[in-house]
């Protein structure tokens, strides 16, 4: 018989929330890199720049960024509602929001 599954983390929800915050911080960087890809795809030896294809690509990346931001905002909204910086006993190494200097 398998042992019953045990909960490893008490604060699963708040742990997930902080990872979404991380993702929200990385998103713009990720977006920037995707937006810079057209620079590396094409060499000027071609006769005309492939503007049509690139525009489809760029608008697709743009739409994906909007969608990702929308999904993140659903999570982050809840983080805004809670009083921030509340001590979380289940996760002693709580991430801090502001950068420490």
């Amino acid at each position, binding site marked *: 018989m398998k042992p019953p599954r045990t909960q490893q983390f008490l604060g699963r929800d708040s742990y997930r929330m902080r990872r979404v*915050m991380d993702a*929200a*911080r990385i*998103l*713009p*960087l990720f*977006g*920037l890199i995707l*937006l*810079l890809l*057209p*620079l590396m795809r*094409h060499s*000027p030896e071609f006769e*005309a*720049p*492939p*503007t*049509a294809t*690139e*525009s*489809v690509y*760029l*608008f697709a990346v*743009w*739409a994906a*960024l*909007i*969608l*990702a*931001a*929308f999904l*993140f*905002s659903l999570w*982050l*909204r809840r983080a*805004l509602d809670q009083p*921030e*910086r*509340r*001590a979380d006993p289940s996760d002693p190494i709580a991430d*801090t*929001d*502001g*950068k*420490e*200097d």
Partner: protein
Amino acid sequence: MSFNLLVLTCLGYVVLLFVVASAAERAAEAGRAGWLRSPLVYTLSLSVYCTAWTFYGAVGYAARSGLEFMTIYLGPTLVFVGWWVILRKLVRIGRENRVTSIADMISARYGKSNLLGVIVTILCIMAGTPYIALQLQSIAQSFTVFVTDPAGSSLATDTTLIAFWVAAGLAFFTIAFGTRSLDANEQHPGVVTAIAVEAVVKLLALLAVGVFVVWFVATGPADILTRIDAQALPEWEIQPGRWTGLILLSAIAIICLPRMFQVTVVENTDDQHLATASWAFPLYLFLISLFVLPIAVIGMELMPAGSNPDMFVLTLPLHLGQDGLALFSFLGGFSAATSMVIVASLALATMVSNHIVVPLWLRARSARQQDTGDMRLLVLSVRRLSITLVLGLGYIYYVITGGSAALAAIGLIAFVGVAQCLPALIGALYWRGASRNGAALGLVAGMLIWLYTLLLPSFGPDVFLSARLMESGPFDIAWLRPYSLFGLTTLDPLLHSLFWSLMVNVMAFCAGSILSFPSPIERVQGALFVDIFNRPGTARSWTRPIAEAEDLLPMAQRIFGLTEAQSFFRAQAKLQGKDGFLPDITPEFVEALELKLAGSVGSATAHAMLAQTVGTSIVSVDDLMAVASETAQIMEYSAQLEAKSEELSRTARKLREANEKLQTLSVQKDAFLSQISHELRTPMTSIRAFSEILMDADGMADEERTHFAQIIHDESIRLTRLLDDLLDLSVLEHGQVQLNITPANLRELIDKAISASNSVQAERNFTLHRSRDREDIEIITDAGRLTQVFINVLSNSRKYCDAAEPQMRINVRRRGEMVEVDFIDNGAGIPRDQEALIFEKFSRLTDSLQAGGAGLGLAICREIMLNLKGDITYVPGQGGAAFRVSFPLRLQARDTSSSASLDSAEAAE
């Protein structure tokens, strides 16, 4: 299309905006601003980013350089999608510190330094003025393109005239809705709502032209894509440097542009709105950009060679005979230009008035040792003047440059200018070590480089910089040429300037911060800004205050106005668990007052004004330790304890006050008992004595007998009156009184009270100041009881006012459903330690002989007012004794006795 029709359309549209804005203002005033403050309106208002430069210029840009136009919208998209990193913190800090502009933000962070405020203001005006000129140009140009009838064409081609009327109209609109009142946090629901409407119009207009082009001119998306490739020019090649640089630049601009700061930070009311805008605003930009390239491509294909691609949005529908669509698109362009000008001039005017004019005026005033008078009107007039000034500058700039082609590039040049604020701003948010000197150095250095390498040369050779200087550098030093500083010749001028200005800016900022030593306030503010999410409460920069609340109240009254200031002081006092208008001067209170002032006049000015009154701010080592402590974790836990102990101390303060009051009352009660026995005894004694005389003496003359009987009669009346008063009070206190509620006119009641009270010390001649018009209010209440209160207050004043030439001011005002009547005399007033007691029973401040009453008058007044659902309070600091009687406009009759007892139970709480 005829010129008149076009002008009429514009006017009709503007009238619509006026209606929308004033409806929004009225809704906000009535507290029904719910939907006005929705995330949707917030997101739409952000669209002031899309100016006429977007609406017309993007298509032209796309026709010339292909996909590069997208960079201007991709940068902001990245910033908003990554709102959790920068914008959230910026908005939170802005709201908690009641920041009024980007200049205010930077000045507040760096020790509330006005120097920085001035630098940022000047920078923003230099960058903003040409931008405003660009909008005026685009409106004027669109008129010219549109009008085809010969009759109107002479008017329509007079672009300076059109630009003038547009500028004047926009100034009027901005003044009407942007400077209505000195708002506590500089928010303008009317303007924001109008901007949101304009956002919808310009988006729909551009989408309509786009849909027309894609599905009616071309046969669909696939067709458009083939046409794009067919039209692609070699110049459309994406240039790596410009692509990356422009994405970066527009990302910086969306944070630093004064108008964007205004709508993003200053007008924000809720973090949740930002969460919505994080995806909704990029979506807006996405939709705005979607059809730009198709319109450009079809325009290049169909329009005659040599036509201006900047006007394709307008000329293409016209060319294809779609006049209605063209008119709609004209309105879209008009919206884009006007919304930008309104918000930009509002933001710039706030900066000019808060950081330049008001501080100068205050300094001039304090140098001459004058009282500062009522400042509200001054600040508002200055702001109105500044709006006119900013728009005037834009107009003059447009006339001087004559709508040259140089203007078209000004959008990006302005971006580089405002980008100079970025290092100081980011430093403000994330670097505790950033200092005022560093920020000032960085800003000035970056601004100078921007001027030299971009703005001045952009006018062309021999306008500001000589052709020779531009060609070979000053003193023939090639390394100092404006367009290739230090031999950097491969970058294009825009990137070249962006690179050098930001580089030098950041270097000067870091060096200045590292080498200088910040003042205490700077360190406190720095900790406050950087650790905004790690801190339970706000940090204090005020300790050991020396001023009295009485000194601060008049100052606050000058800025907020009488009622606003008084209710703020009262609320603060209540927060401390005190009654009345004067809170204890705790550091927290001074902090709250400063924050409120900052919302009206900017943080630097607010701090200076308080420093003038309170004395220099002293930040103790303890306070510094508290805020500079790196152990945020410990703070977190101690915060809860702190909150608890604060509550305890508040309760203790309440208890202490109650105890003091009880002790005084007990002493008074004893005194009263002997007083009342004395009062009862005196008439009793004389009654007994005279009645004995009457009994004993038989041979008494009739007149003598009458005289004695008269005395007995008078004395018994005095007794009865005393007992009546006591009875009255007891009835009132138990809420058993029968109110006789009737309609009445307040003026008549006051008239009656004045003539009735004239008999008290009739020999004293009181000068009355009253406004009979304002008193003309119809009320429903117990007129007899209310008049009794008025008479009592007026008689008291006649009795106790010790001025040589006694005066009485009666002010009446309506506040919502309440009416307030102030009675203010010019006597010595009531000493502070007695204020809490005057409404108590049996209290009498002066000697009993002088007063000739039992000290029940004000106690009865208070009970009456409570029964009338109103109140009577003493207002300190008005230059004499001042009583405020407030009561509801319409008193509801009580229907059952049970509710009456409930009411009195509530009142007792």
